[in-house]
């Protein structure tokens, strides 16, 4: 039996009278890539925000590696093994590419409170950061400020930041949004590689059906904030609720 890494129990958030995420219970197991789909406004990103702690739950619980993290801060969840990449590129724009990744590794190794050593003398951080940059093929751009990178390269860096974090639970929010046709495969290959390391779980919010088909082991469908379907891709895509509520009839044409 594979280990459950992340679990939500009746996770709910209300904004005034509107229930954005409605009692979603779901377990995510090691070695599994779960695609989260649903129409715009179905609550996918809000569900992500609840898990990673950007917004507080109105009801329900989140457990990570068996521990209740519902009341923990974003930083604490991160230290506990939760890593998230963002939908809108969310980096440190005037710092260099290398510095962005190095900051992540520095956070992992708890050297952030070192006030009197020189950052440049921590070569182990630089070496680890360079290894990640090579993996996403950004090593040649290491000294560029992030604001000078193309959109596609910023997305790649976003993924690199997550790899550098080395979490147990990876959360990707539309990782290939706005990327060109030649750039997207680099990111998708990386996600496939991460999936091959069997001790992690990956959550992926994605709209592109071909991406979901090639990567996902399981699909969950959110509709009006509630869990509408959950199962293997073929089964979920064929189910009535998906046909009606989300895919319409388009899917049969693909």
């Amino acid at each position: 039996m594979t280990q459950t890494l992340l679990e939500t129990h009746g996770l709910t958030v209300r904004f005034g009278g509107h229930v954005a995420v409605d009692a979603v219970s779901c377990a995510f197991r090691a070695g599994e890539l779960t695609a989260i789909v649903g129409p715009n406004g179905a609550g996918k990103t809000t569900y992500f925000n609840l898990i990673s702690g950007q917004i507080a739950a109105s009801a329900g619980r989140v457990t990570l590696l068996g521990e209740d993290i519902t009341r923990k801060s974003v930083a604490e969840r991160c230290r506990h093994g939760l890593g998230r990449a963002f939908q809108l590129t969310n980096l440190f724009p005037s710092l260099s590419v290398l510095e962005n990744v190095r900051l992540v590794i520095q956070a992992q190794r708890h050297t952030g409170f070192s006030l009197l050593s020189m950052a440049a003398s921590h070569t182990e951080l630089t070496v680890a950061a360079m290894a990640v940059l090579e993996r996403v093929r950004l090593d040649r751009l290491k000294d560029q400020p992030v604001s000078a990178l193309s959109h596609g390269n910023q997305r790649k860096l976003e993924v690199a930041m997550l790899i550098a974090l080395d979490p147990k639970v990876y959360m990707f929010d539309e990782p290939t949004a706005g990327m060109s046709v030649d750039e997207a495969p680099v990111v998708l290959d990386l996600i496939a590689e991460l999936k091959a390391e069997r001790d992690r779980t990956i959550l992926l919010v994605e709209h592109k059906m071909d991406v979901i088909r090639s990567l996902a082991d399981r699909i969950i469908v959110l509709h009006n904030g509630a869990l509408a379907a959950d199962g293997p891709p073929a089964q979920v895509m064929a189910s009535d609720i998906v046909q009606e509520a989300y895919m319409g009839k388009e899917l049969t044409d693909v």
Partner: protein
Amino acid sequence: MTMHLLSGDRPRSVVLTVLLLAILAALALAPFLFPGVRSLETAARICIFIVLVASYDLLLGYTGIVSFAHTMFFGIGAYGVALGLTHMGSTPGAMLAGTLLGALAAAVLALAIGLFSLRVRAIFFAMITLAVASAVAVLVSQFSALTGGEDGLNYKIPRALTPAFRLGEVAGLKITGKVLNYYLVFFVSLALFLLLLRVVNSPFGRVLEAIRENEFRAEAIGYKVVWYRTIATCLSAAVAALAGSLFAIWLRYVGPDTTLSFEIMLDILLMVVIGGMGTMYGAVIGATIFVLAQNYLQALMGVAADATASLPLLPQLFDPDRWLLWLGLLFVLSVYFFPTGIVGRLRAGR
């Protein structure tokens, strides 16, 4: 060795390097190069303001925190020394105790303000620092039994630091206690500046920059932003207090106008902006230019007014009484032409 002292943070511009070396040499040899009372006064003030402005740059330029309480911390350090010397006698021990207690008090107050308000939005933090700083200024002026009120405090400093103390002659200069006092100010300022330069180039400094750039993401990769901000605020406050202590030792007087006034806060802001935010070296350039302008622009204008005495209109424009107008104009122009500060401009123009 030099690179180690500078924490690997090169000036990254030839002109800037030359300027910094010139300022360093002028300040290091000030008693020998410019032996007047007034010029030594100016040199000491430059040293102290470099530290004060650099400590503010740690907040504003590196961490992106807007605070209006920086003169309050400066004042706390100054009053710490003044009270120590007034109540414990004119001994080096009293001076040191006052200095350390002042820095400690500043750090504790910064911690309280930080934990209380750094979680909220930046604008609220700025408002709270403004409120606390005003409250402290009022307290100091009302609590005259302890602080001397608006009149401030005069006190004796250890004799070895006064003009009455004579030590002999070096290179034609009489080494008095005043010269020793100047070198105390100079070396402590230099050490504090290098310390700040190290802090901004440490792993901690990198986190501060990350917080300035994107607080949300810094939190999401596992940094407890509130703690980093609070530590930066405390450190900045403690260094500002130490600068205040130096100022009090140098002047042998403290008063609300010289250490706590809002005008000094505005001066600090201008010096940071003119020099270049988030560069540390900007503090050196900004403070030097600003203090020189404050002290000598009036005299320079007197010369200009005399030289143009026979021409129409110009003498009136250059009248020394209008020096503040010209100072203001200089600042408007410098901010307009160097939005990234002088250091930013020099580095970009490589």
